[in-house]
């Protein structure tokens, strides 16, 4: 009995340290996961750190996080500046995953059963441009990222705008479109600036989210979102209890 209590006590001491470690290490928000990765919380729960995706990658682009890499231990990630995803059509990394952490269903067209892989549906992350360091936005001609993009003219376009500094030239600035960008990172690798001025971030970091209640009134179809809006307004302030008052029209303003 004493032995059992003592064992439990020792295990509990270890468990507390352990729990602290897990809490601290779990979140590394900028790890870029392989194509087909389920959302991050579910990915971390399902991944058994086996490295099959890393072994399957024909370009050896995927890295399995070692302790000290600053990523969740044993999970796969990309370093785009070094080795971006080459967007293989057969998506060997996702296909080999035994645990469902990488789900080919997320990178396929068609229904389950007769689904066809489509790497263009990969959402590894989203390329983001720093317009202050991007030399194209200075007015210097560079389209390295645009040319490197495997989804050229959809994921990255070059939009000409007037160069106000000279008054007679164009600035050919690259623009990323989130509905087509797979986050493969070819642009980040191609970028000519010292530290890449276009770089891939996980989508949940790179993107905001407008609520269903803001509608583009000039867009005929956008009204639909309002009908489908599911979220209730839950904001509660000290004023919430009072009834709305038309105070602007009151004389005692």
């Amino acid at each position: 009995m004493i032995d059992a209590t003592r064992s439990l006590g020792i295990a509990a001491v270890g468990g507390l340290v352990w729990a602290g470690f897990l809490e601290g290490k779990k979140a590394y928000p900028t790890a870029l996961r392989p194509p087909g990765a389920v959302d991050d919380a579910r990915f971390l729960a399902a991944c058994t750190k086996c490295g099959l995706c890393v072994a399957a990658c024909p370009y050896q682009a995927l890295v399995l996080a070692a302790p000290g890499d600053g990523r969740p231990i044993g999970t796969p990630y990309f370093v785009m500046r070094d080795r971006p995803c080459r967007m293989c059509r057969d998506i060997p990394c996702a296909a080999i995953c035994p645990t469902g952490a990488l789900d080919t269903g997320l990178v396929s067209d068609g229904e389950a059963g007769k689904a066809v892989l489509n790497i263009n549906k990969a959402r590894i992350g989203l390329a983001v441009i720093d317009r202050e360091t991007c030399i194209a936005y200075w007015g210097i001609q560079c389209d390295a990222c645009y040319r490197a993009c495997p989804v050229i003219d959809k994921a990255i376009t070059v939009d000409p705008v007037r160069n106000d500094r000279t008054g007679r030239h164009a600035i050919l600035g690259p623009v990323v479109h989130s509905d087509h960008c797979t986050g493969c990172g070819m642009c980040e690798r191609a970028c000519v600036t010292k530290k890449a001025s276009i770089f891939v971030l996980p989508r949940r970091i790179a993107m905001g989210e407008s609520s269903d209640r803001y509608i583009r009134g000039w867009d005929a179809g956008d009204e639909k979102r309002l009908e489908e809006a599911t979220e209730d307004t839950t904001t509660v302030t000290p004023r919430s209890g009072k009834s709305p008052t038309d105070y602007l029209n009151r004389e005692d303003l």
Partner: protein
Amino acid sequence: MPGIREIRYRILRRLVQVGALFLFVAGNAWGWKVLQGNFSSSLLFGALPLADPFSLLQVAATGTMVAAKALLGGGIVLLFFAAIAGRAFCGWICPVNIATDLADSVRTAAGEGNRPLRMSRNIRYWVLGLSLILSAVFGVAAFEWISPVGALHRGVVFGMGMGWTAVAAVFLFDVFMVRNGFCGHLCPLGAFYSLAGRWSLVRVVHSKEQCTSCMRCIESCPEPQVLPMVGKRDGAVASGECTNCGRCIEACPEGAMRFGLRTQGPPKKVPKEVTS
């Protein structure tokens, strides 16, 4: 120097341990299709999935549905050890065993072999329980995040990083603190296989007739509590905590220990040549 007979299982175990790791390294570095992945999940000959059942148990504890491929792989591995090999993972496959065996040798060479700093061997079962509880609370397979076993095999195959510190810690713990401290007291994976391998077929069998009660088997054993019958009665090792490492067989000068089947009684004749 010990004769080859006295280290024959040790040599065999090292070959299996290093061989498996080598195949994984080859699978990652040169694309060999024999074994790909690592001990957490793998593909044998590019077709047959294998997986660590304890790791999957933790994944399940997080509330995640384990995918069919992994489930099949885990089932195959579990069935193999539960039905046939017992806790042989620890003695024959796990790469940390190489470090802890070395630690044990260092202790013995330094004359520290049996100086006890006591710790209950049941802590590992609490750690096993903790692994599942922490997995459920934090939503990640908890032991896989701190496992020196994982750090070592992943490190060898995919890049070590700072993973060596975990292995070094286990080694030093075993040398300076508790004999067989990690594998025999703390590791929840060992605890898992102890429970799972309880009823396996392959067992170390003792025959009292040849036994001179020299106790070398017990001195050499990393889990000596599994040998209560030595010198007292015939029979197979009953406890699942036996790793089937064969050290007692190597240590016994009289051939009173051998590998056999759970169902077998003691040998009728004295087998001088022990085969497995």
